[in-house]
């Protein structure tokens, strides 16, 4: 599993990468996940339905991340845009 973060001027950055079956790596992933949520990021998991349709689901804790997810993408939380 990879934890990615969208970043201005860079594109995505790999925050952490590991195998959930390895306890140490899982712990690192959980720590990185919490750090991002504490920094105010939103987390989404890109998913694919059985018919091949791609979707995304938001997750609020590491427990909500599907075990077979390949990526979790963090991005800044939404804010009402400028009401010019």
């Amino acid at each position, binding site marked *: 599993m990879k934890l990615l973060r969208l970043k201005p*001027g*860079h594109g995505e950055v790999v925050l952490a990468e590991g195998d959930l079956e390895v306890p140490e790596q899982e712990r690192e992933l959980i720590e990185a996940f919490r750090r991002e949520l504490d920094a105010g990021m939103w987390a*989404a998991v890109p998913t694919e339905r059985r018919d091949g349709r791609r979707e995304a689901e938001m997750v609020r804790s590491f427990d909500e991340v599907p075990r077979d997810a390949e990526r979790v993408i963090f991005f800044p939380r939404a804010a009402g845009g400028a009401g010019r």
Partner: protein
Amino acid sequence: MLLPLSAAAIMAMALLWELALPRLRGSLPQLAHELAARHRARHATDRSRRTLASGEHPRFGQQGYDPGRELRAEQRARELLRSCVNEEEWAMYRDLGFLRMWAPTRAPTHTGGAPYAYLVYPHKPIVAYVPQTGALLNEYCVAFPDETRPYGSARLPDADDVLAKWMALNADERRLIADANMHLPGRQVDPQQVHEDLARLSRWERERMDRLQRAVRTAPSSAAGVVIENLMKGDSNSARPLKIATAYTPPRPASAPADRPPPAGPVRSSVRPA
């Protein structure tokens, strides 16, 4: 001898002046306009050179702006977007510069189609509209500012901004809409531009469908199955309208109600032409 010659010369000059005057009247304002435009362009170029030399982005007033870095970031962002969205949506963004998303809420309508759809532009409000009529519903002004500002700017690359909107709309439409500022159409995105984009989208879908049909006709049967499968992968959506419009029809007046409007956020009713 000299006097008649002078008189003749004066007469000739007066006649020439009379002949040239209408033409001059027409071309002098144009000439003045051209000179003014050149003057303005020269000043703008000088200003841009000065701001670029100082490392400040002319558009965002951002220190340390590096066009090469931004380009690389955008390329990376496009690859990520491509890997996350459906093939049809990626092709739409690549070719048209925006995404159309059907209403993620699976609300049945009397036509069985999507009650509304969104146009997702990079760094512009999300525009909700009725696919069947083209009537614009609302603008949802939303941004994803990264306040850590790693390179001086809080703006994500364009494709990342689109991906963030896509993920948020897809996964939790109501949460995103609740966080957005809702405005009537025309506040920031020019409605004329949106209608042109819808017409482009309609053309694009028609051409894409034609290409796929041609591919199915010419491909061997096993390959045709793959083509159809890919087409379905990109296009299948239980919420899309049942009827694929063959041409974009201009919107009806706002009096035509949507089957089911998108969720409401805080309304700012002031309308300002974009």
